[in-house]
């Protein structure tokens, strides 16, 4: 069947991609620890599975690579001594090549790279002994020659196997078994083991002592698959000398084939209770289907919210009953939403699977020794969070490998082990998931960070000096502040730690840094378990509606600033609860036209890290419970936006990020205020 149109092509790609991702990690483990049989089996099984499915689809190149790699894996497993770096590199190359093939399955022609790689894999495999062949060469223990009652008729049986027979050895074994079931098999030539790895079309001749009629024997053997022709006739009376020599009556001894005699490696470790290991049965669902389901669940909730509004306009007697019904409906809808959310939970391992390979490559490139420890791979997060976390996490890992960990010489001089330790962990804490990237490297230099922050004009010298060391570490999240002067090709000049923080906060999370000079640095990401339901205050500016997370809103108020200097104000102050609060125009901040006539205007007073500020809008529209979704590029780069949601009427709504607004206004420095300055804010 034409592969490109195969109805399960997508499924094949998904399964193969999963296997290949896991292979990457397992290959890294091969290098790091003495490989165990289960590890080898798993590696073999993944390669084998990709090969099997690809073969059915007719993807010849994938089969070629996987087959060659599988052969090498089988020989490497049998080889007891240490693995060569080059051998593992080849397996990595094979995995990479398979990933590449699977990404662009439609390419038709053979490319030279594949051919070269397959050759290299084959060459490496040839350099190693073939465990299968070795077993075959091992002579089986001498068996007593099979004997049969001399009075039984002898049948000469000739069996022609089909030319298309893919495994003549196995086919011959079935023929042998069938013959043995009908009598005593005195001779068989060639033996099944001798036909192994031969191409089809073999002829087998056998001598059978039996009471079964020739026709019956012929029919039984002809009924086997891949048997083209069977010839059965009575054997001439004169028998080979060895049969005459054999004693007349001992019970017939079965022929033991070499396949039976040799000991084969176990495919699976028998020690563990298999039932405990088996994951519960699951159904694979397209990710988009879950997204749609989530959107629809959200829509139902919005619809219910609208019903509720409508019910308020009903006469009181009708309204009460209606509201009761709506409440029940709302509870059900919430539960439905919750279930969809939990179906979207994805294990942390989907993010960390690629890390071992990435860290291995980084270590080689940087000339460092790095031991990666990944913990909490089964902790689950919403798929949206997992997807958004990919870049920040790999950034933090690169950063730790490049800037955090020292080279082996420096480490040894500092009295540390030459091999640096990098720990990536996830753990659940109530409704949060804490992800940490920890290194045992040089730690951050608070003084240097202070200097850089002043140099980059993010802080004035006095502010910088007032920061505690802990607060100074957070300066690394400022754009343009790096902990090292030399930019490297691995992680650049501290580029992106600000992006990491932005991304985490856009998910409703928090990023922070702990560091001890000489001991190491830990980046802590506090993440919501799922993209959450947010209670939003809907405001209008110009023609657009925006949402503001209510948990940041202190109060709303009305104020007439035009009386004190007209429209177009940059910033003014309001008195809120006896305190002066800076006020900004949302329209001004985003460069939007404001449609509000001069006069009193609504203000939303928000609080971020103890700092209060007010934002003027054109109109307060109402409140709505909404499913917050992270923004995708390029919107995710707009400061001041936290996410998006879709209103009940299908209209998209941008949700504002109060922290980003505070930073935009300049009132809030993205550095946590040191304890000393906090009270003043």
């Amino acid at each position: 069947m034409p592969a490109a149109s195969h109805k399960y092509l997508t499924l094949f790609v998904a399964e193969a991609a999963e296997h290949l991702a896991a292979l990457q990690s397992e290959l890294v483990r091969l290098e790091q620890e003495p490989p165990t049989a289960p590890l080898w089996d798993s590696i073999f099984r993944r390669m084998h599975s990709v090969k099997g499915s690809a073969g059915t689809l007719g993807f010849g190149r994938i089969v070629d690579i996987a087959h060659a790699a599988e052969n090498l894996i089988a020989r490497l497993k049998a080889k007891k001594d240490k693995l060569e770096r080059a051998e593992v590199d080849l397996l990595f190359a094979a995995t990479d090549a398979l990933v590449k093939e699977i990404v662009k399955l439609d390419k038709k022609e053979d490319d030279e790279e594949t051919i070269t790689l397959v050759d290299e894999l084959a060459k490496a495999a040839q350099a190693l002994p073939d465990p299968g062949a070795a077993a075959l060469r091992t002579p089986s223990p001498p068996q007593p020659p099979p004997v049969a009652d001399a009075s039984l008729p002898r049948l000469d049986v000739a069996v022609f196997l089909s030319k298309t027979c893919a495994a003549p050895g196995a086919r011959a074994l079935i023929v042998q078994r069938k013959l043995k079931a009908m009598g005593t098999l005195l001779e068989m030539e060639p033996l099944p083991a001798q036909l192994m790895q031969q191409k089809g079309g073999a002829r087998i001749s056998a001598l059978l002592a039996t009471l079964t009629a020739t026709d019956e024997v012929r029919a039984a053997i002809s009924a086997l698959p891949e048997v083209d022709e069977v010839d059965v006739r009575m054997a001439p009376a004169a028998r080979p000398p060895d049969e005459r020599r054999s004693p007349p009556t001992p019970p017939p001894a079965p022929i033991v084939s070499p396949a039976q005699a040799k000991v084969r490696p176990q495919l699976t470790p028998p020690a563990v209770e298999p039932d405990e290991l088996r994951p519960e049965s699951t159904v694979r669902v397209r990710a988009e289907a879950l997204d749609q389901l989530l959107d629809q669940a959200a829509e139902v909730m919005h619809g219910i919210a609208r019903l509720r509004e409508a019910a308020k306009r009903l006469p009181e007697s009708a309204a009460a009953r209606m509201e009761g019904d709506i409440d029940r409906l709302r509870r059900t809808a919430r539960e439905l939403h919750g279930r969809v959310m939990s179906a979207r939970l994805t294990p942390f391992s989907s993010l960390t699977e690629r890390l071992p390979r990435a860290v291995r490559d980084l270590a080689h490139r940087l000339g460092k020794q790095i031991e990666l420890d990944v913990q909490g791979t089964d902790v689950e997060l919403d798929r949206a969070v997992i997807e958004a976390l990919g870049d920040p996490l790999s950034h933090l890992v690169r950063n730790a490998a490049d800037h955090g960990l020292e080279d082996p010489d420096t480490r040894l001089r500092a009295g540390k082990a030459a091999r640096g330790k990098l720990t990536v962990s996830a753990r659940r804490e109530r409704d949060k998931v804490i992800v940490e990237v920890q290194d045992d490297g040089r730690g951050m230099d608070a003084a240097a960070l202070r200097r850089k922050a002043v140099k980059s004009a993010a802080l004035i010298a006095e502010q910088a000096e007032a920061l505690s060391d802990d607060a100074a570490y957070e300066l690394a999240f400022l754009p343009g502040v790096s902990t090292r002067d030399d930019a490297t090709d691995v992680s650049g000049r501290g580029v992106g730690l600000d992006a990491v923080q932005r991304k985490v906060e856009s998910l409703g999370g928090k990023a922070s840094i702990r560091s001890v000079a000489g001991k190491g640095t830990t980046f802590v990401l506090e993440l919501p378990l799922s993209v959450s339901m947010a209670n939003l205050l809907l405001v209008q500016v110009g023609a657009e509606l925006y949402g503001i997370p209510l948990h940041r809103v202190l109060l709303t108020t009305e104020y007439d600033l035009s009386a004190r200097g007209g429209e177009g104000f940059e910033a003014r102050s309001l008195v809120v609860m006896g305190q002066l609060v800076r006020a900004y125009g949302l329209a001004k901040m985003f460069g939007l036209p404001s449609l509000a006539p001069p006069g009193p205007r609504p203000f939303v007073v928000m609080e971020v890290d103890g700092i209060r500020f007010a934002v003027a809008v054109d109109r307060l529209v109402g409140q709505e419970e909404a499913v917050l979704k992270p923004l995708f590029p390029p919107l995710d780069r707009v400061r001041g936006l936290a996410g998006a949601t879709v209103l009940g009427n299908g209209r998209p709504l941008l949700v504002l990020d109060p922290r980003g607004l505070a930073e935009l206004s300049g009132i809030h420095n993205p550095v946590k205020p040191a304890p000393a300055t906090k009270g003043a804010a």
Partner: protein
Amino acid sequence: MPKRVLIVDDALFMRNTLRDIFSSAGFTVAGEADDGVQAVNLFRELKPDLVTMDIVMPYKSGIDATREIVQFDPNAVVVMCSALGQESLVMEAIEAGATDFIVKPFRGEDVLAVVKKVLGD
């Protein structure tokens, strides 16, 4: 009565492909298992007329599963689904009691030809 098949393979892709082959030929797919442990349990529960058994699977190989199935029911019809280059494993499976085998990559008609022969149709 249509023959009932238990399909065992750790790749969903292969299970779906086999299911289509059997369904279109009038078989009933009685169950599917994605590892050897599940295969043995489902065999005991469903007592199918035929099992197609992958060899290389997690937790319990197709060979061990076949051995247990044949111990449970000596008349069980188990057809191994092996890949090219797995001949020695297929032979081991036959020693363990497998009825026959097919070699991947296969076409629907290859599978059905073997299956019909081993079921004596």
